[in-house]
């Protein structure tokens, strides 16, 4: 079947989609957007987290056919999404080509300089919250949504918002630091 939906602000079309296919599979294998990670395929790990009509969901548990006519934001479009939110203007989104080429590298792979990053992405780099990096995209999408909803979160708020995202490297402390840092920067405190 064919599925038409919006990905990172641009209308997209996926063809020959199998009826039992997940949104995650469509994003990764048909649209060439491997930022959303495929791990547990049962909603346990959160590494495939995307926003569906603004709401964070596990894309492995959304049937592709269910996104017909709806809006999806992936980690590849997060920088643009955050920019639009901060300047309040409706931008033109991120094309698949740009999304595919997006890398958290820029001219300096350690600081991310030269790449457009969402504040939460920059905070993850600055706080050293990335180790193997597999859980990072899901955490970024979940954390960004929480900061949009709750600009001044307590530690308990952060833990709850990220409770559906498993990290097996860091012990979460640096991730907590990163979210606190992003919240402080957002509030103008840093």
């Amino acid at each position, binding site marked *: *079947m064919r599925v038409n939906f919006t990905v990172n602000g641009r209308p997209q079309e996926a063809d020959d989609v*199998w*009826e*039992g296919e*997940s949104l995650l599979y469509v994003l990764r294998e048909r649209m060439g957007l491997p930022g959303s990670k495929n791990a547990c*395929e*049962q*909603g*346990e790990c*959160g590494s495939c*987290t995307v926003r569906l009509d603004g*709401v*964070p*969901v*596990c894309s*492995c*548990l*959304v*049937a592709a*056919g*269910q996104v*017909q006519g709806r809006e999806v934001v992936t980690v590849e479009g997060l920088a643009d999404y955050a920019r639009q939110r901060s300047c309040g203007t409706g931008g033109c989104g991120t094309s698949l080509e740009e999304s595919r080429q997006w890398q958290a590298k820029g001219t300096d792979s350690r600081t991310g300089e030269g790449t457009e990053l969402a504040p939460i992405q920059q905070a993850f780099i600055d706080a050293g919250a990335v180790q193997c990096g597999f859980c990072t995209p899901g955490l970024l999408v*979940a954390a960004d949504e929480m900061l949009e909803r709750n600009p001044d979160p307590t530690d308990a708020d952060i833990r*709850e*918002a990220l*409770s*559906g*995202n*498993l990290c097996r490297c860091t012990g979460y402390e640096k991730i907590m630091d990163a979210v606190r840092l992003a919240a402080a920067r957002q509030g103008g405190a840093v």
Partner: protein
Amino acid sequence: MDFLRPASWEEALAAKAEHPTAVPIAGGTDVMVEINFDHRRPEYLMDLNRVGDLCEWEVGEESVRLGASVPYTRIMENLRAELPGLALASHTVASPQIRNRGGVGGNLGTASPAGDAHPALLAAGAEVEVESVRGTRRIPIDEFYKGVKRNALAADELIRAVHVKKADGPQQFSKVGTRNAMVIAVCAFGLALHPETRTVRTGIGSAAPTPIRAEAAEEFLNAALEEGGFWDNGKIVTPSVAQQFADLCSAACNPIDDVRGTASYRRHAVGVMARRTLTWTWESYRGARRNIEGAA
């Protein structure tokens, strides 16, 4: 596989009548797992996300009519006063991502004994509104669960809503698992005090082939509270009464050993949760009574 996209409830009923093997999918948090792992290859998958009124709820005089697809997140945020037990249970469902998608209709459709909503629905008192092209019926929650992952639905029926009685007293929910988030219940317990009828209702999850009430325990406690004049005098529940209640709740279980826990652990934990939730709710009832008397 065919993907059906009914745009309205009527279309969904017609599609289900025409294709009784169609598997409804809303939040997808159960169905997609089975498809991803190749445990299920339904002939037809029927998306209910387009049926908007399934995501709505109405607060009435006596009860809340909760659309089958209202996400757990909405229940936690909006119905904590009316449905405190279900709101507490909703908060223990998996993770924010899952609570944003899943709803009570899915728990009822899957009818797993481990579904988090069941103990709260059993304790509060509820009716499941199901419909087919043949008509609508309301199934009392006590008659809804028929076996492990089996419910009272006919092949052509869909769950439209659940009517849950509004709380007339304190309610609690307790769940045992290895951590707070992302846990399938080892076992769970819901308890609701109903001061208007002077009764207590219970719900037990993951400790029998279906979600159940501990009816003998309820009868014992109702009689003991009545006999001791507890509803009027607001005294603490005698420890021996609480213990007997806990033992009867344990005895109501018919659990199995599995990867999440042993049968004897489940029986024991249900007793502990029964005693605790009784204490919590009763303290809250006594507190509310004192406030009323203090004001008078």
